[in-house]
């Protein structure tokens, strides 16, 4: 073989062959992940508007973000509000839904398909449907309320209700998490429930002491994914607010503000700094979650 002819030692020959085989992925990783990562770090230290050459600013973009009183407090509040509420509520709703769909009910497959369906609906469709459903004047939900003689609710046009409404939509679209929970629930050994029954455990006890611990690794996984998704929340609020982050900046989340600063205000350097700050925050949250998991996550195969 050619590589043998080059006189390479087997160790390096294998390394080279391995690299050649993974080169399509490796090239993609370097070009589309490593390079943007490094360049965003570089631009975060510069004033860069895409149109003019970057000008070195040092840490100014980072300092500006932390000292900006006009937008940073609003954006951080909106994002934390959304993350802190939507992540646990989303996981809880997915878990409960999976629990319900794991019972012996008629038409179970149909229900599973129905509840999974939102996960495969494109975000633009989801946004348009909910926009019209929840519209205060023309929405079907408010139409029904009006029909019942109740007053209408400005779900998406009132700044106090817009974030809870988005969280509600988020809870509705939990098909993926639900599916993972469903698979996990089906994997919980029946023998544990049978033993618990023999010991006189009721339904709640079984759920609390068997189902939850056995599913806890997956709960952790879904929670982490929900936190990350919450911090990066963009598509739905962007589409529902028409790209404004309104009403009254109530849905201007971190990613929306980042995007507006980058592409509408031409502050690519500042937006890069924001991206790095977000990255650090997400890593911190993930580490905290992992650290806390020792107390509440049960790994059946873990060493004692």
């Amino acid at each position, binding site marked *: 073989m050619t590589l043998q002819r080059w006189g390479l030692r087997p160790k390096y020959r294998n390394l080279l062959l391995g690299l050649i085989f993974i080169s399509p992925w490796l090239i993609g990783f370097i070009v589309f992940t490593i390079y943007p990562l490094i360049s965003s770090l570089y631009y975060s230290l510069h004033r860069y508007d895409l149109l003019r050459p970057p000008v070195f600013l040092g840490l100014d973009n980072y300092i500006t973000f932390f000292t900006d009183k006009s937008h940073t407090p609003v954006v951080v509040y909106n994002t934390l509000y959304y993350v802190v509420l939507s992540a646990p509520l989303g996981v809880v709703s997915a878990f409960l839904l999976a629990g319900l769909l794991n019972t012996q009910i008629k038409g179970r497959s149909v229900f599973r398909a129905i509840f999974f369906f939102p996960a495969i609906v494109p975000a633009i469709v989801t946004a348009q449907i909910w926009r019209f459903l929840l519209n205060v004047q023309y929405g079907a939900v408010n139409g029904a309320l009006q029909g019942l003689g109740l007053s209408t609710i400005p779900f998406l046009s*009132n700044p106090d209700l817009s974030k809870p409404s988005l969280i509600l939509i988020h809870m509705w679209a939990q098909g993926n998490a639900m599916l993972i929970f469903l698979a996990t629930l089906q994997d919980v050994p029946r023998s544990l429930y049978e033993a618990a029954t023999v010991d006189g455990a009721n339904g709640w006890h079984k759920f609390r002491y068997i189902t939850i611990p056995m599913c806890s690794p997956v709960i952790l996984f879904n929670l982490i994914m929900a936190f990350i998704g919450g911090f990066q929340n963009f598509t739905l609020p962007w589409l529902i607010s028409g790209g404004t982050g309104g009403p009254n900046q109530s849905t201007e989340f971190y990613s929306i503000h980042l995007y507006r600063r980058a592409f509408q205000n031409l502050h690519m350097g500042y937006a890069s700094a924001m991206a790095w700050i977000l990255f650090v925050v997400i890593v911190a949250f993930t580490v905290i979650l992992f650290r806390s998991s020792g107390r509440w996550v049960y790994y059946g195969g873990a060493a004692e």
Partner: protein
Amino acid sequence: MKKLSRREFLRVGATVAAGATLAPYIAQADEAVVSNAPAARQGVTIQYWPSWSNFPPAWEKMVETDEYKEFVGDNTVEVKTGTPWEAVLTAIAAGTPPDAVSNYQYLDLMARGVLRPIDDWVAASEYFKKELYFEGSWNDGFYQGVMYGAPGIEGFLRYGLNYNAKMVEDAGLDPDNPPQTWEGCLEWHEALTKFDDAGNLTQMGLDPYDAMGGQIAIQDGFYPPVSWGWKWFDADAGTFNIANDMMIEAFDVMGEFYRIAGPDNVAGIRSVEGQGGWGGSFNASVQAMIIEGYWHPGETIIQKPEVGQYNRATWAPVPTAREGAKVQGTGGHYVVFFKDAANTEPMFKIAEFFQTDTACQILFEDVGWLPARIPFIEKTDPSAFPGLEFYFDSVTEATEWSSPARCPITAYVSQQYQELREKVFRDELSAADAAAEFQTRCEDEYKMAGF
């Protein structure tokens, strides 16, 4: 048949693959030789990105004309509409901009040095002569003394209060005696704003922040300074004049329209009809009055004739203290050319074509647009669309003329204006605090953007 060994197979395979890979380049190399010949300079593909979504039908008609064929020669023009601003920026940053664009943030581009100056082309052009254009529209093609924008496509007058005479009459108001001040508009607004039994807004008199009342971006001016009569940005000094009594009054007066209709109600209607939707809610008969430019009469009659037939226009409102002031503005659109683009010169010919009566007539009839070109305006029938005559009359009757400020962070200013005015009409911030905050934000941004 001789069997191929594995080595031979690999060798043949590699040769074929290399040949296939190189073939297109070999072909291109031949073409490149041909394209260097003077005769082959024709036949290039010009990229033009106007962002208007209602432009294509007119363009399709234009390309069929003999005049267009003369201007374009053997070249081809690829028109791409609706391209997002982000995509334009990315194309510029990647070094592959289109040859020209229209209806984007002209000032952002002019101020950042990515456009090709066109003074030399304009000096040699038969079509672009300063005296043939409205002064403000011509001047707005310049930035710091250099001409970057060739006026074109759309550029006639910017301000008028358009109203649906039928809705006005139905509300018991006199359509022959329209309001001229904000106070008068508010009275009409109250009479024209309707709610259902549940308190939901079903019809709005005037949304003062819709269309030209609320936009600052691109080349559309900033209405409170036009209405109250001051300059909000000094381009020479690079200073803002926003935190003043007039801005405070404007926040309060214009916000009152929202307080009457209910901010949540308006937000609900806007999420369906669109904010700054350039007449969408007027066409839907949800809004009875709108501050719009000359294009409103034509666009409305073309898009919704059953509504357009009732359109009338009068002077855009001013504060009571300035009653009698007749404000009007120039502005409009340009064709701007990118320095790094390959075919800007043949594209300039297309910009010249847009000045011809043929192109202007198609745009007028099919879209409702007029250029800032005086000879064509003089030939146009002002009664073509209901309400259009007002704009023609205003050319001689206006007492105050305005032009968009030459502010290179206009898009940011527009965004902050939208945020802060909402805080005022939702009573979260006083008008005075909003004006002060507006000023601070603009000054900070101006520095941050490196101007």
